């Protein structure tokens, strides 16, 4: 625990110390060193706790109505803390460099400080074990991330995004009020432990579960609560988008898992709700992603998709608990947590690579990019690794977790009774996989391959090492988990068992249901080997062959120009048109140009209109206050009279 607290302190110091240092190298290196050291220590503490299967706690007295403040690391906290710490370090280094070479280098200190606060509050959120502390950390996270989202507040859309984000996060906080208020009604005090004890005797448990699902869902951003996510991600600086997508939205997942941990096996309806929501947001997320041209928005919608996949895992776990298949519960939760970690890794990687591209080309519109693979080879490699990982194909880490979720679904099919219906999620997940493949083929191909579609792109050059090293770390992690998942088996099983409320979570036996993960490991390794062999084969074949260079075969067209390349809109068009109105895309077919523009169904279709309605209604009340004193006096008299009426009636 001391280890963790020291690390936490260092992260906080990373926020406070640099601003007081003199400008220049000292300040910069201080930030980097403090942040990395702090994250390293916290991660180490979490790893120790997880490996040692121990729950470490620290309590101190507080005079708030909420009771004591408790901070502790249990397996659930540990795995999230690890994710936060790793991403915190890598993204911090990246972001420091990125902001310096950005539009406001003079404000990089401010950005770094806010960033460190955000990381610290994230660490606190996942380790807080009492309500008031949790909510405080939660709001600190919200505020600091809000300030980072509107960092480039020069543009109107950034401010709009910030507004939407702050409103969404505030709503989730309010709902959390309600949830904890209800829950703590009969509890001793407001520590998580006593909430867990009070659960059994709760009168209205389902309301609490529902509130939790919605309140944390706003943060997690599953459909239809995802509306704030794309604008915020495309507005904020790249490393912030990376962190938001990597861990900030995962705090919503953490919250749901925490609620499940405290409340024990949920009712079946909860499991089904989560499963269905997961399926829906996975499908719609990837579908909407297909239609995007802003690369960061596109990645944001993929976060929606992956949150959906994670929720599929949670749904399996919840159903396993509800129908009395503890092994399945452990499997489901474990799979969800693993996919959370994986998504954190490769999504941050993707956002950073995209950020590097943006820094060089100053555009996020993929229709203007192209042919960057030969100008930014390393960035391309990073993005490519991220893409392979996110579409969940072997041999990278995305495959392992998606495979686990599939296994859960198939195991569900092997049970008896209603539980088997969960199998229908498998084909949905398959379709999602196919669409994700299409989408990343589109973005990778259009951004990095082919030829440059605009002049500015043509003279862009590779970014520096402080951009690439953090990405390299994450990429290496993706490979490691993809090729050697067996090393994680026990840890995942432990977390799953802890969430599932298995008393034996500490012992090795809990891992049985997840298995040793040696199957996918073997497969991935074999695939890698096969690729190597085939590569050697090809090399041998090609060695003494003549290799001519020639322009692309234009099928008879003499001069293929960059404008003749297949655009992203056209590439996605068949799939998008196949899903019709759901895809929320408006296509413009011109004589020479085909362009499609995406609209978010929930935000632009529902919320904006609803807000307009509310404003209109509010305006309709304006005449009340029209400045006539006599009218105001009439109100007073009316108030008296109505009170008198009550006076007469109320006896």
């Amino acid at each position, binding site marked *: 625990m001391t280890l963790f607290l020291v690390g936490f302190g260092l992260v906080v110091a990373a926020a406070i110390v640099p601003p007081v240092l003199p400008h220049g190298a000292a300040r910069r290196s201080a930030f980097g060193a403090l942040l990395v050291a702090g994250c390293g220590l916290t991660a180490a503490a979490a790893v120790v706790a997880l490996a040692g299967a121990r729950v470490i706690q620290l309590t101190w007295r507080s005079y708030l109505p909420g009771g004591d403040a408790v901070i502790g690391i249990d397996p659930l906290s540990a795995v999230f803390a690890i994710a936060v710490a790793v991403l915190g370090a890598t993204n911090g280094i990246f972001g420091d460099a990125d902001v310096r070479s950005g539009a406001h280098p003079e404000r990089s200190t401010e950005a770094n400080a806010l960033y460190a606060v955000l990381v610290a509050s994230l660490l606190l959120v996942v380790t807080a074990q009492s309500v008031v502390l949790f909510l405080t950390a939660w709001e600190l996270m919200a505020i600091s991330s809000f300030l980072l989202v509107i960092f480039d507040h020069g543009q109107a859309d950034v401010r709009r995004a910030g507004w939407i984000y702050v409103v969404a996060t505030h709503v989730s906080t309010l709902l959390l009020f309600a949830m904890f208020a209800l829950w703590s009604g009969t509890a001793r005090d407001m520590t998580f432990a006593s909430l867990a004890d009070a659960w059994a005797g709760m009168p209205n448990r389902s309301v609490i579960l529902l509130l939790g699902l919605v309140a944390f869902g706003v943060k997690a951003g599953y459909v239809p609560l995802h509306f704030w996510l794309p604008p915020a991600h495309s507005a904020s600086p790249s490393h912030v988008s990376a962190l938001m997508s990597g861990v900030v939205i995962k705090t919503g997942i953490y919250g749901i898992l925490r609620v499940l941990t405290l409340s024990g096996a949920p009712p079946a309806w909860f499991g089904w709700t989560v499963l269905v929501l997961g399926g829906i947001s996975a499908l719609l997320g990837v579908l909407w992603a297909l239609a995007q041209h802003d690369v960061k928005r596109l990645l944001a919608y993929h976060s929606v998709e992956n949150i959906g996949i994670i929720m599929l895992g949670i749904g399996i776990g919840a159903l396993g608990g509800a129908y009395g298949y503890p092994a399945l519960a452990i499997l489901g939760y474990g799979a969800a947590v693993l996919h959370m970690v994986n998504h954190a890794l490769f999504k941050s990687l993707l956002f950073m690579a995209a950020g590097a591209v943006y820094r060089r080309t100053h555009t996020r519109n993929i229709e203007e990019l192209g042919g960057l693979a030969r100008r930014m080879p390393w960035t391309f490699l990073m993005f490519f690794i991220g893409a*392979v990982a996110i579409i969940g194909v072997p041999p990278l880490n995305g495959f392992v977790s998606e495979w686990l979720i599939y296994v859960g679904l198939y195991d569900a099919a092997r049970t008896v009774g209603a539980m088997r219906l969960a199998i229908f999620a498998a084909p949905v997940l398959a379709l999602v996989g196919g669409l994700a493949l299409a989408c990343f083929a589109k973005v990778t191909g259009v951004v990095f391959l082919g030829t440059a579609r605009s002049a500015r792109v043509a003279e862009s050059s590779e970014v520096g090492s402080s951009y690439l090293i953090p990405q390299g770390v994450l990429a290496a992690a993706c490979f490691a988990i993809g090729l050697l998942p067996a090393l994680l088996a026990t840890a995942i099983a432990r977390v799953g068992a802890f969430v599932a409320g298995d008393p034996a979570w500490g012992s090795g036996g809990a891992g049985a249901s997840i298995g040793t993960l040696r199957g996918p490991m073997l497969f991935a390794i074999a695939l890698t080997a096969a690729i190597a062999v085939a590569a050697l084969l090809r090399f041998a074949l090609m060695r003494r062959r003549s290799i001519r260079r020639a322009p692309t075969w234009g099928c008879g067209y003499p001069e293929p120009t960059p404008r003749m390349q297949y655009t992203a809109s056209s590439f996605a068009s068949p799939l998008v048109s196949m899903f019709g109105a759901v895809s929320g895309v408006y296509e413009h077919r011109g004589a020479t140009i085909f362009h499609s523009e995406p609209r978010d169904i929930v935000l632009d279709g529902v919320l904006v209109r609803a807000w307009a309605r509310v404003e209109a209604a509010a305006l309709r009340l304006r005449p009340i206050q029209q400045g006539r004193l006599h009218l105001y006096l009439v109100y007073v008299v009316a108030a008296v009279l109505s009170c008198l009426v009550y006076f007469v009636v109320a006896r």
Partner: protein
Amino acid sequence: MRPAASAWIALAIVLVVAPGVLGVASRTRALLTRRRGAPVLQSYYDLLKLLRRGSVLSDTTSRVFRAAPVCLVASTLLAGAVIPLDGRAALIRFPGDVVALVYALAFGRFLLVLAALDTGSSFEGMGASREVTVASIVELGLFLSFGTLAALTKTSSLSGMLGAPLAAAWPTGSPAILMTAVGLFALMLAECTRVPVDDPATHLELTMIHEVMILDHSGPDLALILYSSALELSIIAAIIVTLLAPRGDMPVAVSLAVLAAGLLATGVAIGIVEATVARLRLPKIPLYLASAASLGLFSLVLVLWSSP
């Protein structure tokens, strides 16, 4: 996990027979349309010829273009390795290895599509777009079919779905199994871009799907791509064969013979289809895929309905 020798032999058979299946298909088609057509072994000659050729690389392309064929063939091979080709157990088997099968194929496809986009040609981009469109629905259908088998055999490993448990499930679940087999066949036609989804014999790029993607590949690269698409077809064909004729209890030799025969028979079947059915217009293809997938859906519902 000690892979039996029979599994190795079976894999070898598939690897060898794969191009032949295509040959048989085109030959059958030719005969049915009253043409002499190319010899059955023509596809082997083509591959050898390509392997001996040099190659031309487009100067817009990057490493991806050259990496694609390699990854494609490797992943297809691995996909074959998780199927119990000898009707007993696969070389690599673990719970949920169906996912490995489908996603390995997806990995190869991803690389191939990127290679197509790498050339910057609008035609290849078009082909890539169509390829991913078709493939995404095919995956849906595949998982529905495998879901049926999983619910039927209570296993999540292909070695179980197509091994002994399948044979045990035949008496009760034959309707579902047959429906699944038909569905798989239809999906195979789409996945391997045969008629009625795509016509390998066409020469108009605008109507192509698979062929147009690989326009710029030449020499050994092209050979690898062609070979792996043939291999993919044979793998799925092998699944269908095993579905229709569970070989868990046959002696090894017989089982292997049945496999080879079955593959060639599938080739004949494809040929018959191509000779009799007309190619669909592109807008109609999603409908076709949907109905193929819905076969899988029906069978799954049937299984869940009939067994407690």
